[in-house]
C-alpha cells in the first residue's frame, strides 16, 4: 500500500513537472473547440445569402422580392448587375442568385390557364451544395406559395410541421462531447503507450523489477495518477465549454464524471496493451496513431455516426470511442439519465475489463 501511494505521488509529481506535455495535451482540444466552434457553429444553423437581380422592375417583381425578403432563413439583397452577382456567387459570398428577367411582370399578369408556367432562372454554386440546396428549397417553397396565391388555389392536403425535440442544439454542443471523448482517447492511449515503452527502453522498469515491487501495484498507481490528471483535464475542458461557449450540460454532472472515468479506464488499458506490443518507444507512437486515427473519424467525434456509410456501421458500432462520444453527447445534449445509457456503459465497461485482462497478460518489465 505504501508503494502504491508513493508511486502515485511520484507519477503526479512527474506530470506536474512536465509542463510541456501538460500544456499541449490541454491546449489541443481547447484550440480545436475554439476553432471549430467559432467557424462552424456561430449563429446557429446555416445562413443563406441570396441576391436578386431585378431587371423587370414591375409591381409583380417587387411583390415577389418582398415575399422572399420576408423569409427568415435567408439574407436577401438586391443587385443591379447579373454578372457581378454571379461573380460573387462563384467566390462563395452568395449561395443563390435569382434573376428576374425583363418582361416577367407582363408574362405573369397576362398569363392564361393554358400557358406553361413561367421559368425563373436561379443560379447556385455547386461547390456548396448543402447551403445551395437549402436555399433552393426555401425559394421553391416561396415561389410555390406565391403561385398558389396568384391562382387562388386552395390545397386539399396540407402538412403541419412541428419540431419534435424542443432542445436547441448547435454544432458546438455536438462537438464538445466529441472533443472530450477524443481527448480521453488520445491522452490515455498515446500517453500510456509512449511513457511505459520509454521507461522500459531506458531500464527504469527493469530497475524496479529488481525490488519487491509487484507489477499490479505499479499498474494500479499508474491508473490512479492518470485518472486524476486526465479526469481533471476533461473536466476543465467541459467547464470552459460550459462557461465560455455556453455549452449546456443537460444531464447530471455526476454521470458525466462517471463516463469520463470509465472512458479513461478503457483507453488507458488499451494504452497498456500497445505498450506491451511495441518493441520500443519509437514504434509505440505510430502503433497508437494507427489505432486512434481511424477512431477519430469513425467514432462520431466530429460527425454523427449515422453519417457513416452503411458497410462501416457494424465496425463503427463496436468502437469504444463511438460509445463514449454517444454517451457523453446523450448526457450533455439530451440529458438522458443513466438508465437510458446502460448499453453504452456496458460496452465501455466491457472494453475496459477486457483490455485490462489482456494488458495484464502482455505487460513486460523489459
Amino acid at each position, binding site marked *: 500500500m*505504501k*508503494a502504491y*501511494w*508513493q*508511486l502515485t*505521488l*511520484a507519477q503526479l*509529481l*512527474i506530470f506536474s*513537472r*512536465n509542463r510541456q506535455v501538460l500544456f499541449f495535451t490541454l491546449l489541443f482540444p481547447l484550440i480545436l473547440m475554439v476553432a471549430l466552434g467559432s467557424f462552424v457553429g456561430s449563429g446557429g444553423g446555416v445562413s443563406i445569402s441570396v441576391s436578386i437581380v431585378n431587371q423587370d422592375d414591375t409591381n409583380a417583381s417587387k411583390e415577389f422580392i418582398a415575399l422572399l425578403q420576408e423569409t427568415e432563413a435567408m439574407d436577401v439583397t438586391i443587385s443591379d448587375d447579373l454578372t457581378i452577382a454571379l461573380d460573387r456567387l462563384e467566390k462563395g459570398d452568395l449561395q443563390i442568385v435569382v434573376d428576374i428577367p425583363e418582361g416577367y411582370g407582363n408574362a405573369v399578369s397576362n398569363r392564361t390557364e393554358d400557358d406553361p408556367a413561367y421559368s425563373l432562372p436561379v443560379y447556385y454554386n455547386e461547390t456548396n451544395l448543402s447551403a445551395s440546396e437549402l436555399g433552393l428549397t426555401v425559394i421553391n417553397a416561396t415561389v410555390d406559395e406565391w403561385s398558389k396565391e396568384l391562382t387562388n388555389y386552395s390545397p386539399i392536403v396540407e402538412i403541419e410541421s412541428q419540431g419534435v425535440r424542443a432542445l436547441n442544439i448547435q454544432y458546438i454542443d455536438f462537438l464538445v462531447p466529441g472533443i472530450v471523448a477524443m481527448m480521453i482517447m488520445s491522452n490515455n492511449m498515446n500517453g500510456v503507450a509512449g511513457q511505459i515503452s520509454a521507461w522500459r527502453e*531506458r*531500464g*527504469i522498469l*527493469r*530497475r*524496479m*523489477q*529488481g*525490488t*519487491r*515491487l509487484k507489477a499490479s501495484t505499479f499498474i494500479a498507481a499508474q491508473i490512479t495518477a492518470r485518472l486524476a490528471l486526465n479526469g481533471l483535464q476533461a473536466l476543465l475542458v467541459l467547464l470552459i465549454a460550459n462557461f465560455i461557449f455556453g455549452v449546456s450540460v443537460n444531464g447530471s454532472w455526476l454521470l458525466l464524471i462517471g463516463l469520463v472515468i470509465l472512458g479513461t479506464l478503457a483507453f488507458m488499458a488499451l494504452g497498456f496493451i500497445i505498450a506491451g506490443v511495441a518493441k520500443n518507444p519509437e514504434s509505440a507512437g505510430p502503433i497508437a496513431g494507427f489505432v486512434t486515427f481511424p477512431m477519430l473519424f469513425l467514432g462520431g467525434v466530429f460527425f454523427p455516426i449515422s453519417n457513416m456509410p452503411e458497410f462501416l456501421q457494424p465496425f463503427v458500432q463496436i468502437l469504444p470511442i463511438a460509445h463514449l462520444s454517444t454517451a457523453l453527447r446523450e448526457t450533455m445534449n439530451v440529458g438522458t439519465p443513466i438508465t437510458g445509457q446502460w448499453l453504452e456503459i456496458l460496452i465501455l465497461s466491457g472494453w475496459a475489463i477486457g483490455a485490462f485482462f489482456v494488458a495484464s497478460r502482455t505487460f513486460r518489465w*523489459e
Partner: protein
Amino acid sequence: MKGCDQMAENMIEVEGLVKRYGKETAVNNVKFSVSTGEVFGLLGPNGAGKTTTIEMLVGLRKPDEGTARLAGFDIRKEIGEVKEVIGVQLQSTSLFELLTVQEIMKMYASFYPSNVSIPELIDEVLLTEKKKDRVKNLSGGQKQRLAIALALIHDPKIVFLDEPTTGLDPQARRTLWGIIENLKARGKTIVLSTHYMDEAHVLCDRIGIMDQGELIALDTPAALVKNLQSDSAIEFSLLHNEDVSFLDSLQAVKQVSNQNDRYVLYTDSIQLSLTDLIQQASSKNINLQDLQMRTATLEDVFIHMTGRSLRE
C-alpha cells in the same frame, strides 16, 4: 528465517548457472561461492557474461540450468525473499529524471517492508548538497552514487554492483571506491563486476575472471598475478616486418604476446631477459622503441590466459 543459518559460511553459492540465447551460450556452467563480508569481483571484457550472471542472480533473468542460493534463499524458488536480502545497482540504470534525489529514495524505500534512514544514506553517498536536485541535473558520478544508495535503501545483506565506475572520470571513480570500501567495512557482502584491472585489484578480496561465458580463473588478486609464474613484464614496440623469432628463445622469458607491433615479454628474471634482449637486438640491428619494464598486473593475467587483451 532459514537464511540465517548460513550467515557464518557462504553468503552466495552459485551452482552451475547456464544461460543460452538461441545457439549462443552467454553463461556456461558458472560456479563460485562468496563468503559473508567478502568483496567478490567478476572481471572480464564486454560480452564475457558478467552482466548476464549478475542478472540471473538478482532474478531479472531465468537461468536455463543450475541455480544459486543467496543468504540461503534459492533464486529459482524463493525470488521474493532473495530480492529482500539483495540490493542491486544495474549497469546504466536510469531513474525518473524529474524527481529529486530525496523523492526517488522515498519511492524506492516504499517498495520494501523496512528501510534505513534516508538522510543518513544520502550523507553516506555524499549527496546531501544535492538532495533537492532533480536526477536530471546530477553528474554521471552523482547518478551512480544515487544508484548505489537505492541499492542500499533496505539494508540488504548482499549488494550487486554491475560496472559501477564505467564511464566515470578518475576523480569520480576514486570517490565511488571510497563508498564501496565503507560498505565492506560495514560487513556487506559485495559482488562487483568491472573491466578495470586496477579497480578489481584495489577493491576485491577475490576475483573471478570470465571470458566467453566461462569462469576461467578464481583467486585473490595477488595469487592470480603470482600464478603467472613470471612477475615482471618487458614491453616495447618494433617496426613492422622485423624477424621476431628470437624473442621466444630469450633467457628466462615465459611468454611473448604481441598486439599491433607492441610486444610484451613475461619473465621470471628481468635482468637476464633484458640483457639478452638488448644484446640480440643490437647484433641483429633491430631498433627497440619505447622500452619499458613493469611488474605484471591482472591485465597480464587475462592476456596470459586468453591470449587477448581485456579491452579488445
